[in-house]
């Protein structure tokens, strides 16, 4: 036994900010001080506060250290681990509480969170099945196999009110019920880990931090519908997640928790990983299943639904990573426990990947019904640099934006749909006054144009025509007429596309047109971009009364567009200007202005 555990985040975020060298330095320091038998370093999954990574947490004190470097790690060993003195300067600073705090649960970032799907992320070592077992891992599978019939398992999931966390929010229990009712000698359980929305990383974090939860849930699902084989479809761009999932599957097999006759119940189930090559359309269920079969990932019309004809034409259920992560908890604690959280029609919690113009970039899990204001202002720590919150984008390229006036709407599936956005898989991008909403719509549409598989014309051609109109608007070449055309095109693409990709692709355009129509009109009629983003509508000028003639702007201009004598006011040649903004950044006297 150890007297202290040092948990270091080994998620993608903290790995990128250098947690591997922190772990090395901790272990070296521990060895140098002869503490190997007293202190153990554990690599965990994501703590959520990616902004402040690498994160190191020392137990039993629960001291939460942020932005730790390899040198800081030496100090943690020599001060905290050797002498028992917490290193105050490295503690996470909680602005709202006024000063450093040492315990996680006290911080504004964690206080309003409720971790169900992320319950073990940042707590256990995902590469050690023993740690998962120690926190009641695989008990839910055992309970399902020994205490419940498959029908009872399905009923518990139905009663819990759990809905799909991948975006559309279909009731998970119903999906299972349909697949269980389908006749078939072979059935499949699949997991959608093809997370592709720009800015979303919930599923990656669950797989990296708690892969066994997904494995356990898939085995439970297999028992419920009568499947013996499962596939996890995960993108190859998630190397850490793929590796940990592979290790977890091997360990589960070794322990007899996957394979034949699990826990002496007679039920057998096994899992394989299928790597996706990163096509966004493969997150769509029929395309994903086609890809699992080894064919080109293209969608097909529904019906038949996967519950009748899925992978290899056999009855199949496909759920998202986060959906599965909830299942073991629901089986252990009951449907009533789960349905006591959340709103009337959206039960439980939702994980969001918080990004954009927000202080605490990272991963948060909140009960359904939490308002956007609580997420942005309290958990997220507000918008940086004193800027004003303008809107939040949810659901990525399939979703829409929530404008500032709707900041107090409780977040759940139905409320988001009602205000023209959608839950999506959980990317939440915060925007401030410096973001141009037309540009945002264009950004997401560029993404869908790139990712459209091309099988059906409304999506292949329609999205491209929409992008052309948006490009005209942002470059000042559009007429008011274009706005009506754009809107009409949106509805056509929505109504006529084959799969979810095309059906939802117009959402970012529609929702920005709904809430920020004045910005569209300003681009078209006044040929200006109110947020100062769209380059072709910008012009830079130098205010003669503020310019002291220091020449800084002239030096940094890559186009040699600025001229002027020393100590005299400079000027910009608009014909040469490439609108890079370097002069504005360089000027210390605020003489360069954008309009």
């Amino acid at each position, binding site marked *: 036994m150890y*007297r202290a555990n040092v948990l270091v985040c080994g998620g993608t975020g903290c790995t990128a900010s250098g947690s591997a060298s922190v772990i090395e330095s901790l272990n070296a320091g521990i060895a140098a001080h002869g503490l190997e038998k007293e202190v153990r370093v554990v690599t965990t999954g994501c703590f959520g506060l990616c902004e402040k990574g690498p994160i190191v947490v020392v137990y*039993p004190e629960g001291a939460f250290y942020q932005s730790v470097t390899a040198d800081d790690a030496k100090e943690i060993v020599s001060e905290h681990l050797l002498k*028992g003195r917490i290193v105050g300067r490295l503690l996470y600073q909680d602005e709202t509480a006024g000063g450093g705090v040492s315990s996680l649960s006290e911080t504004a970032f964690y206080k309003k969170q409720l971790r169900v799907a992320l319950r073990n992320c940042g707590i256990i070592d995902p590469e050690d099945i023993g740690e998962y077992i120690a926190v009641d891992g695989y008990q839910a599978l055992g309970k399902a196999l020994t205490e419940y019939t498959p029908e009872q398992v399905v009923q518990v999931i139905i009663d819990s009110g759990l809905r799909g966390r991948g975006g559309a929010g279909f009731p998970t229990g119903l999906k299972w019920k349909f697949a269980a009712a389908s006749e078939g000698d072979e059935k499949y359980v699949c997991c959608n880990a093809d997370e592709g929305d720009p800015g979303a990383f919930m599923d990656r974090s669950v797989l990296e931090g708690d892969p066994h939860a997904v494995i356990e849930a898939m085995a439970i699902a297999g028992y419920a519908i009568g499947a013996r084989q499962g596939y996890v479809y995960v993108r190859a761009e998630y190397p850490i997640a793929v590796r940990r999932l592979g290790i977890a599957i091997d360990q589960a097999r070794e322990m007899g928790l996957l394979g034949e006759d699990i*826990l002496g119940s007679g039920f057998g189930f096994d899992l394989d990983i299928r790597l996706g090559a990163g096509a966004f359309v493969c997150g769509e269920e029929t395309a994903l299943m086609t890809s699992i079969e080894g064919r080109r990932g293209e969608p097909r019309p529904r019906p038949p639904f996967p519950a009748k004809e899925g992978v290899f034409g056999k009855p199949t259920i496909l759920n998202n990573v986060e959906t599965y992560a909830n299942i073991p908890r629901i089986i252990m604690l009951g449907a009533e426990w789960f349905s006591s959280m959340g709103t009337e029609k959206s039960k439980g919690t939702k994980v969001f990947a918080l990004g954009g113009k927000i202080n605490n970039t990272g991963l948060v899990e909140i009960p359904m019904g939490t308002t956007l204001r609580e997420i942005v202002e309290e958990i997220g720590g507000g918008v940086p640099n004193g800027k004003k919150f303008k809107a939040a984008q949810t659901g990525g390229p399939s979703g829409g934006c929530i404008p500032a006036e709707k900041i107090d709407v409780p977040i759940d599936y139905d409320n988001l749909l009602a205000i023209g956005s959608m839950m999506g898989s959980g990317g939440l991008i915060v925007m401030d006054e410096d973001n141009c909403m037309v540009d945002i719509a264009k950004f997401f549409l560029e993404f869908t144009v790139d990712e459209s598989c091309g099988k059906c014309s409304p999506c292949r051609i329609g999205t491209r025509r929409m992008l052309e109109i948006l490009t005209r608007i942002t470059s000042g070449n559009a007429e008011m007429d274009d706005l009506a055309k754009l809107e009409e095109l949106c509805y056509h693409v929505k109504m006529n596309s084959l799969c979810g990709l095309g059906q939802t692709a117009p959402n970012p355009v529609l929702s920005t047109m709904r809430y920020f129509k004045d910005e569209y009109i300003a681009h078209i009629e006044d040929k200006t971009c109110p947020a100062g983003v769209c380059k072709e509508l910008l012009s830079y000028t130098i205010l003669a009364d503020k310019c002291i003639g220091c020449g800084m702007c002239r030096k940094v201009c890559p186009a040699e567009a600025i001229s002027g004598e020393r100590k005299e006011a400079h000027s910009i040649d608009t014909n040469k200007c490439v609108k890079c903004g370097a002069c504005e950044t360089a000027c210390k006297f605020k003489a360069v202005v954008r309009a």
Partner: protein
Amino acid sequence: MKSLEELKALRDKLQSDMALREDGEDKIKILVGMATCGIAAGARPVLTEFVDEIAKRGLRNVQVGQTGCIGICQYEPVVEVFVPGLEKVTYVKMTPDKVAKVVSGHIVGGAIVQEYTIGSETA
């Protein structure tokens, strides 16, 4: 792994490390003085002995930690025991040999081992 019982037994065995990562509010805390004076007087073997003894008995509600110098260097190694809701008890001139008795008598049995406390030294 052939049955749920086996899985549960394994879980119980593996829990000690995880207990360390739980909220420590209502746990018994054993703090060993580990300032220069404590270390020089031999506090580290005392600390490791506490950790081993607690692991041996599988006590989940006990935390072992370090603290600094409380100013009675002549009595080092000093060990303070905090049972939630009760006054702290200070053991002095501790050695690894004395640890088992403190754990069995005080931590498990709830009876303070008077002969090792600071009171018996100063009396």
